[in-house]
């Protein structure tokens, strides 16, 4: 099924995203970016002449529904490629589906690593591609005591494990590690914020995702946490910022592989096209950029290979870099993840201003367990450069 490449028929691409649910506000931008890439491919003549037709349904931020929709897209709609997923549990629900059917999932978000499937292309960053830079940055700026708070699922728990190891390695201290459910209530978050206020950590490392993140930032602002504390995150992107009143996250840091403020010709083009298509007030974020680049890469590879077979696409992509908005990226042949560009940005006037970025793409190492090798140092390595600090 997945191996046929019929030049006379359109190429169906399943876009696996939620239009409702606590993560819909991010997944909507991923969906838009996927759609934009597909439209650009069609405008340039399609995939080996075939028109690309997207199919999508509302996955409700629900893993079971992601799995059912993946089946429906492949079995009933005839999709040979799937792009999407945001939270780890939704990807995990889809992986067995594509493995059984020999199909391909292009996964459009950063995650915690420790996975490999020949039927998945992992488009987002793994911890070795952002947490190390963030920890070094925070501790280099004098951060000693850390307070970790996240949504209770795999990604925050694993990120916190890595962060705690790095903090301990540099003789810092983790004051607390707290988790909340995806649909966390205000009261629950407020207890944590009050605890933060009492403990006065140098750094709050926040991996609260979904709409709860906005509430958490609101409560932090009300409690005046930012007076003593830097709030740092991997998941607060322009999309989360867009849900907050202006000024709420002022001064906060995020580590990611893309910000809308990246200055490259490819990014200016991307932002311009996206806003022209979806509205001038729309903002980009790392997940949307990943979805956009990944869709372009996979479709281009399908055109060159004249196939949608996972192994052929992977082979092609490992040999063919792509000029993404974040910089030139390519697939790692060995582990199926991407070489990406780590960056750190600070929220300023309700936008992300990049304060540090890698001078070269960083090889993905999804199975790295010990992130603090002996040579680990709080000084930025020669490969990183500070930008307008």
């Amino acid at each position, binding site marked *: 099924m997945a191996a046929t490449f019929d030049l006379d028929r359109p190429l169906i691409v399943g876009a696996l995203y939620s239009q409702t649910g606590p993560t819909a506000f991010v997944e909507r931008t991923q969906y838009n970016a996927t759609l934009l890439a597909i439209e650009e491919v069609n405008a340039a003549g399609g995939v080996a002449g075939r028109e690309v037709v997207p199919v999508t349904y509302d996955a409700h931020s629900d893993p079971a529904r992601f799995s059912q929709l993946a089946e429906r897209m492949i079995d009933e709609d005839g999709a040979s490629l799937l792009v999407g997923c945001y939270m780890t549990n939704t990807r995990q629900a889809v992986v067995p589906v594509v493995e059984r059917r020999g199909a391909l999932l292009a996964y459009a978000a950063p995650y915690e690593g420790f996975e*490999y499937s020949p039927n998945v292309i992992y488009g987002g960053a793994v911890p070795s591609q952002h947490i190390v830079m963030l920890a070094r940055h925070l501790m280099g700026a004098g951060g000693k005591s850390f307070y970790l708070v996240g949504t209770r699922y795999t990604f925050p728990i694993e990120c916190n494990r890595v962060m705690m190891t790095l903090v301990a390695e540099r003789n810092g201290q983790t004051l607390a590690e707290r988790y909340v459910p995806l649909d966390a209530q205000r009261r629950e978050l407020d207890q944590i914020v009050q605890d933060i206020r009492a403990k006065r950590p140098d750094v709050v490392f926040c991996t609260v995702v979904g709409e709860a993140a906005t509430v958490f930032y609101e409560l932090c602002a009300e409690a005046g946490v930012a007076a003593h504390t830097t709030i740092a995150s991997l998941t607060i992107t322009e999309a989360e910022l867009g849900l907050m009143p202006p000024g709420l996250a002022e001064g906060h840091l995020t580590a990611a592989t893309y910000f809308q403020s990246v200055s490259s010709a490819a990014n200016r083009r991307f932002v311009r096209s996206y806003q022209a298509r979806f509205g001038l007030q729309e903002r980009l974020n790392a997940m949307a950029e990943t979805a956009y680049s990944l869709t372009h890469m996979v479709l281009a590879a399908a055109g060159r290979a004249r196939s949608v077979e996972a192994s052929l696409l992977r082979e092609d992509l490992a040999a063919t870099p792509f000029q993404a908005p974040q910089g030139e990226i390519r697939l790692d042949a*060995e582990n199926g993840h991407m070489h990406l560009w780590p960056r750190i940005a600070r929220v300023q006037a309700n936008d992300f201003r990049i304060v540090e970025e890698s001078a070269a793409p960083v090889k993905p190492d999804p199975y790295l367990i010990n992130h603090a090798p002996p040579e680990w140092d709080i000084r930025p390595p020669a490969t990183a450069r500070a930008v307008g600090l």
Partner: protein
Amino acid sequence: MLKALRDIRDVRVVVFHPKDRECDELVAQLRRIGCQVEAIWPPREGLLPLADVVFMLFRQDGFTHVLLKALAERGPDVTLIGIVEFESPAVIEAVARAGVGAIVTKPIRAFGLLTSMVVAQTLSTREKSLLDRIRKLEDKLGGFRRLEKAKSILMTRKGWSEKEAYEAIRSRAMSARVAMDVVCSTIIDAEELTGP
């Protein structure tokens, strides 16, 4: 952090499995995990390369037999992980008797290999340290037995009390700067040579 997790990238792995796609997949995943991997097929008699972890396909053939013999000689320093393709009682028995720390089922897939390896390494470390303790306890017990025997020889031969026999052995060990156990062994050896 668990030692077996922290040190996973220092682990030397040898894979005994026919060279095919599944073997390639296994080796590739072990490399992703960050181990040093060598795949060997066919296994050569009497030659077991240096390894911390051995993945081995269990079949009812000569290769399996040869490998198990070589591994048994190597002792508990190697963590064995069995790759199984049949669940017949004969295979299960062979796998259990070989003392594997974990099994991997065919068809081999990436998921689960890291967990199997870490669990097997942890079990194997625990077994090694238990064996170590047993050996030390056995040595100690042997020492006690020899002391008792040497004392009773002196008591019979010289008509000493138990305390006098003990003091004699102790002062001899002190003046000769050797362990009391050495003195005891000498006394026992001499008794066996000259005794009734």
